[in-house]
């Protein structure tokens, strides 16, 4: 036995396929949660876990992607404890740039600004539920598996998150792209 032994060819081939088909999605998942300078380190840790536990990685592509997302999520949280752990779940939102050349519809600009501000008032739990569905494209059973909850509980959480986001957005004063109103309330899971 040599310490430089690696896995058999079929394991290596499987890991290469897994890596190629999930890398961008996994990096994007992490980029929404941590500083960009740390994202690739988190992804590296997640793939190391996957390589070591390849037998446990589901063979279905979407299941495997959700499995990796779950590993990356736990890696993000592993360094924090207590109240900080809740904050670590928070998902960022892109800054809605009112001057973006790509956005020429004034009404759309205002709605994006409102939505971005409303997002920041959501609880981290609701942000996670929405992000998994809309940005990661996970269905309810897989998103629930990532969070370690039942699909029913996830759908409830998602529904409440949507409702809270809509309520926050509609409650905001008419958006002036140059101003920022930050109410003190946040949604509660």
């Amino acid at each position, binding site marked *: *036995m*040599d*310490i*430089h*032994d*690696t*896995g*058999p060819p079929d*394991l*290596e081939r499987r*890991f*290469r396929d897994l*890596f190629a088909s999930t*890398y*961008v999605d996994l*990096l*994007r*998942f992490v*980029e*929404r949660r941590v500083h*960009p300078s740390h994202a*690739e*380190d988190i*992804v*590296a*840790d997640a*793939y*190391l876990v996957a*390589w*070591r*536990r*390849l*037998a*446990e990685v589901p063979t279905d592509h979407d299941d495997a992607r959700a499995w990796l997302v779950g590993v990356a999520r736990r890696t993000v949280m*592993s360094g924090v404890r207590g109240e900080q752990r809740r904050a670590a779940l928070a*998902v*960022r*939102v*892109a800054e*809605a740039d009112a001057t973006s050349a790509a956005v020429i519809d004034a009404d759309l600009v205002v*709605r*994006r600004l*409102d*939505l*971005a501000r409303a*997002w920041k008032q959501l609880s981290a739990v609701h942000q996670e539920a*929405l992000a998994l*569905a*809309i*940005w990661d494209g996970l269905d309810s059973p897989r998103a629930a598996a990532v969070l370690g909850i039942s699909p029913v509980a996830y759908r409830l959480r998602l529904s409440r998150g*949507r409702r809270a*986001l*809509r309520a926050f*957005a*509609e409650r905001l004063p008419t958006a002036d792209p140059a101003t920022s109103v930050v109410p003190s309330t946040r949604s509660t899971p």
Partner: protein
Amino acid sequence: MTTTTDLSDLLRTLDPARTSAPLDPAVGARAQALLDRTLALPVSGAGTPSPRRGRSPRRLVAAERSCAAEVRSMRVPDEMGPVDLSRMMPVLSDVRGPVVLVYLTDGVSELSCYVEDGQAGLAGSMTNVGARPTVVPRGSVRCSGGSITRTGIGMVRAVTGTVGDGVVSVVLDTVAQGPVTATVVDRHFAAWWPDEHVTDAAEDRAGPGDELRGVTVTLRDGSVRDVPVETLLGQ
């Protein structure tokens, strides 16, 4: 913004993730480097005697609970001074065949616990009580505990300890089994291996570190370095 579809469509335009396919060449090069160095590491069960995470999380959870209960019921000799056993938490668990090894620590002192058929037994002495936490240099590894115990698969040895920043893999060159891949979790490592040659007489003759010939660590950047046994033992 009245319908769920509207809300979802608008939110999609606010995705903060930057990376997209096809990858930017620089990101693509880093991804390829990550793939190469991950594949360069031994995969569990494929080449070296590697403690493996169990396929059944329930089994691990049950083992950790059994060990935590065992620790709480442990009697600490008065001469060791006050020890808060409730702070001893499992940080790493591994399955090999019928045996689960659970490594517990409160950040300073530590214990190894073996679970077979649901029965937990503590092994090794409670080390480092009252000591200050050890700071392990980046890229290095430090052994802080060891034990020998009889299990259903025979005598086994275990070593546990801490790794420094950047260490992603630890391979111990053992006298009994050759290369043994340790499990590294949250800066802790544990490795254990069968050693059928353990006898009281042999142990009496043995010096610190006689069961190991060396250690090889792999860093996150893919580089590999050898760590002398003396460094591993903090000598």
